[in-house]
């Protein structure tokens, strides 16, 4: 029964992949090799499509692989398999947090955790920035500094940042405007 197998395989990924959506990638590669359900080529497509569509990357990847293995229902089953462990684990932790939320130890732990999370997200942001705003590969090839930077992107970045700071619009408005600018100006 392919659906049960799919559910079980993605349940294991959801249970063991720590560190977000991209952390599921090595598990998916291992799954491809072990089961022969899909090829390595499909993994490259999966990453490209998951990054270029709305939704968390990890979920997009699970749905994409599931659909390719066993159709529409396969996509649903794979995604649910990956989500179920998270729901259980987080509910259990939430229940115990309710009891200990006001305790000194939990409060002190969060005192250390908050700046750490700020650092982790800043690092993720810089990672995205390197890919989104600079042409690293081209620069390494030519060594010309003007190949590294794309003035259009720098201007868009500055305008978006000032807009976000000054105007209190919903983030999706900035995303939509950027998409239009990208198409019109040929980013």
């Amino acid at each position, binding site marked *: 029964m392919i659906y049960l197998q799919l559910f079980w395989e993605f349940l294991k990924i959801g249970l063991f992949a720590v560190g977000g959506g991209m952390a599921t990638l090595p598990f998916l590669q291992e799954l491809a090799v072990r089961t022969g359900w899909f090829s390595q080529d499909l993994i490259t497509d999966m990453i490209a499509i998951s990054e270029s569509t709305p939704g968390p990357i990890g979920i997009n990847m699970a749905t994409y692989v599931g659909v390719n293995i066993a159709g529409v229902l396969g996509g649903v089953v794979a995604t649910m398999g990956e*989500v179920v462990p998270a729901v259980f684990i987080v*509910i259990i932790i939430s229940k115990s947090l309710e009891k200990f939320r006001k305790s000194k130890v939990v409060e002190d732990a969060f005192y250390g955790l*908050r700046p750490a999370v700020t650092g982790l997200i800043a690092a993720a942001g810089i990672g995205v920035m390197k890919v989104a705003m600079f042409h690293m590969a081209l620069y390494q090839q030519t060594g010309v500094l003007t190949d590294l930077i794309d003035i259009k992107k720098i201007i868009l970045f500055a305008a978006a940042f000032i807009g976000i700071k000054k105007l209190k619009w919903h983030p*999706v408005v900035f995303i939509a405007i950027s998409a239009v600018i990208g*198409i019109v100006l040929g980013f």
Partner: protein
Amino acid sequence: MLSEFLSIYWKFFKMGAVTFGGGYAMLPILRREIIENSHWMEEEDIMDYYALSQGLPGIIAINTSVFIGYHHRKTPGAIAAALGVVSPSILIITVIALFLAGFKDNVYVQHALSAISVCVVALILDAVLKMWKKGVKDGLTLCICLVVLALSLMTKISPVIYVIAAAIVGISARAVGRARKNGKEAAK
């Protein structure tokens, strides 16, 4: 009850539909919807849930959504949030995987995405600056933030390690601080 379940589902559905990238890209949208529009919780609560989500198995966006859903309406809220945030992915990816083979090669899609990713960087920067204000309060927290940032950029250490280490540092630094304070008071 059902209408409440559906309204949480719909709220997370909308957030899932406009998140481009991983869990970090969802943060600006979460802040906006959960803190500013709905007032379900404070900035610190979201940061704490985000921190825990990084250290737990599973996809960060899902973990955070389940924490927020539970915080708002217990287990039904948690389930509604999880289902809501994955639904747009299932719909969109299924359609693309089955019908739109050339989607990622389309030149307009590429131009739009290339500009969207620049905008996402600006949104993340804004979110980081807001978190900085709440999380970095003294020399030690400044140190933790910069060390985690530098190590994340230079090494491939798992986030779980940072989460565990930062919690231990927080607990022990506060314990040492209190012990010193007590010692001084005792000396007086």
